[in-house]
């Protein structure tokens, strides 16, 4: 019987099976951030254990870094302790650190792919739930907590139970201004926030094959929001073209040898999935969340659902969400005034995201009273965007253009909204208080967020740009 892509990568990385039945899966790359790594360094040192492979481990400062130009360790006073502990711990263990002044610093899930550190068929551990982002390159990303992070530091493997396999075939052709973000939100709406629990997900179908790599990274990034720990897309010529020449990717004869292997990375025709779904994306419109988890989402022309008509098990949650969001059942989201717009996070702050937003913003201004900011995913993205003049487009319109980091997605760096504000955001979690106390978050794509920023209200971006991509 054929094997799935997931099984091929898993089997190739299975070092042994432990006495308790868990598979030891080798982690080709391990990327750390300052929120969790310092604690793990300390535990490791207390146990007298060395880092097994510092040469395969990388540290990135992203969660607590300030985004203000000219930032230092103390610009966000709450972050300075983390930044210092990360710097010192990385030095003690000989781990390459992308510090706040590094020309390639950025969000860990943005930096590792763009530098070519993460490769198709590779495994990738990060102590952050959005580790699954790298699935966009055909890699297997595993997010983890602090104990598992310490485990990987000490052993370079993770002790995992083999998950079930799910395939989601995304068929049809996306309409203009409908993006990977909209597809991902639609999937979460269909499956629910726990629908992927216990599964590894493979995204397939025409939509994925036509999707550029940055879109695939966005799609896979949101896998954890339906409860699946990892999700991936089979690598193809689009992937190889995107990776070729990246500074940490193999070159020359090694590249050729790697490419020959990567071309075998797909699910066999007769591979069996425990769950196999198809979602038709042809009629999909831009999506915007109305509630307090990413599954509570509707198309831009839709209306906020009525808990009274929902499944009894969902009703209480929906009512709570509506109360927090200050919304009534039956109202359209289009037209809802906003206070704040945020374009950033590992979900949506790569170059193509910023280009999509800039295309909407160009020649327009942020609506009076709206606070709008753009935080590029990395210094590399920032440089590329500035070389194209995107920063001027945003700044001329009244957006703040900041230094790379997690910013208003994780709420760990001091960037946050004021109580009661309504914020439209390209991030991944619309949880209560995530972007500040009592801040009401609506998740959407970069183009839709940009459109709302200039309109001052949630709006169908296609009305602003005439439905052309």
């Amino acid at each position, binding site marked *: 019987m054929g094997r799935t892509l997931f099984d091929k990568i898993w089997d190739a990385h299975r*070092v*042994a099976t*432990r*006495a*308790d*039945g868990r598979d*030891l899966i*080798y982690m*080709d*790359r391990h990327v750390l951030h300052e929120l*969790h790594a*310092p*604690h793990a360094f300390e535990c490791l040192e207390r*146990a007298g*254990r060395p880092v*097994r492979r510092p*040469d*395969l481990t*990388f540290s990135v400062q992203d969660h*607590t870094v300030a985004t203000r130009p000219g930032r230092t360790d103390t610009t966000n006073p*709450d*972050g300075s*302790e983390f930044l210092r502990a990360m710097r010192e711990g990385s030095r003690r263990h000989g781990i390459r650190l992308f510090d706040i002044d590094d*020309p*390639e610093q950025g969000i860990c899930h943005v930096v590792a792919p763009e530098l070519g550190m993460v*490769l198709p068929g590779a495994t990738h551990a990060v*102590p952050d*739930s959005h580790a699954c982002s790298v699935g966009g390159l055909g890699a297997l990303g595993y*997010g*983890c*907590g602090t*104990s*598992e992070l*310490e485990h990987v530091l*000490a*052993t*370079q*493997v993770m*002790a995992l*139970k083999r998950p079930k396999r799910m395939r989601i075939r995304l068929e049809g052709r996306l309409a203009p201004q409908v993006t990977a973000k909209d597809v991902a939100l639609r999937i979460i709406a269909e499956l629910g926030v*726990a629908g992927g*629990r216990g599964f590894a997900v493979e995204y397939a179908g025409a939509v994925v094959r036509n999707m550029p790599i940055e879109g695939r990274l966005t799609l896979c990034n949101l896998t954890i929001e339906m*409860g*699946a*720990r990892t999700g991936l897309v089979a690598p193809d010529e689009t992937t190889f073209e995107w990776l070729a020449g990246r*500074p*940490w990717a*193999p070159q020359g004869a*090694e590249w050729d*040898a*790697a490419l020959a292997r990567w071309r075998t990375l797909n699910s066999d025709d007769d591979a069996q999935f425990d769950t196999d779904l198809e979602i038709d994306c042809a009629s999909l419109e831009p999506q915007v969340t109305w509630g307090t988890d990413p599954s509570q989402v509707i198309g831009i022309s839709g209306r906020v659902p009525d808990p009274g008509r929902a499944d009894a098990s969902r009703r*209480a*949650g929906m009512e709570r969400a509506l109360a927090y969001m200050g919304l009534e059942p039956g109202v359209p989201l289009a037209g809802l005034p906003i206070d704040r717009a945020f374009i950033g996070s590992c979900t949506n702050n790569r170059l193509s995201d910023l280009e999509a937003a800039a295309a909407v913003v160009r020649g327009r201004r942020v609506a009076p009273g709206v606070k709008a900011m753009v935080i590029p995913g990395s210094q590399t993205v920032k440089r590329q965007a500035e070389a194209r003049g995107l920063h001027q487009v945003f700044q001329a319109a009244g957006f703040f253009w900041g230094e790379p980091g997690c910013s208003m997605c994780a*709420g*760990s760096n001091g960037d946050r909204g004021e109580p009661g504000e309504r914020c439209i955001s390209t991030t991944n*979690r619309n*949880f209560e*208080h*995530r972007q500040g*106390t009592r801040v009401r978050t609506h998740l959407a794509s970069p183009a839709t967020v940009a459109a709302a920023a200039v309109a001052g209200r949630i709006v169908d971006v296609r009305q602003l740009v005439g439905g052309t991509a």
Partner: protein
Amino acid sequence: MQPFTSVTGIAVPLIQDDINTDQIAPVQMARALKPDYADLLFKRTRTRPDGSPDPDFPLNKPQFRNPAILVTGRNFGCGSSREAAVWGMLAVGIRAIVARSFADIYRENCLQNGLLPVELAPEVAADFERRVIAADGSAPFTIDLLEQRIRGPGGPDIAFRIGEADRMRLLEGLDDIGLTLKHADEIAAWEQRVAREAPWMQTARDRRRASGETA
């Protein structure tokens, strides 16, 4: 890790689905390398906007001041992978969580710290939730991992199942890293083989530096 055999104590009901780790451990409210994890637990939910404790939140009620068991709904612990959401439970004395289901990373974080995650099927869970609410902290429940049973007021014993490997790990309080390091030779052999067959996987380097170019 502290071994787990059984826990007897007050069970606190927090019957809600999809409680995420932002709610359990709102780390934004205590931005420090080593915050007070007990103070942080459900801090935002426990506290009213004026900073006073919300008397309606179960963990603030006098009968639940010393909880040992948390009882909750589906998909508990979804969201961020932060382990503070487990450390906070242990810091207030909670040694077991009974839920309809757990988010994958949260469940793993529980096992890593000797916090017992018990999953009950919906109909069994509904009955147990009713008993916990009825007991209202007046009598203790016991969760016995050896026998995989829950005992307590209001009804017969409830059997539960947890994977045998996870059960042994909790019962013996095994050091997870130590368990893996028994395979150190196999890890080394794997590395050597891959270094021969696919050397780019076992070397991570900036090729610009290797070739003398500047970044």
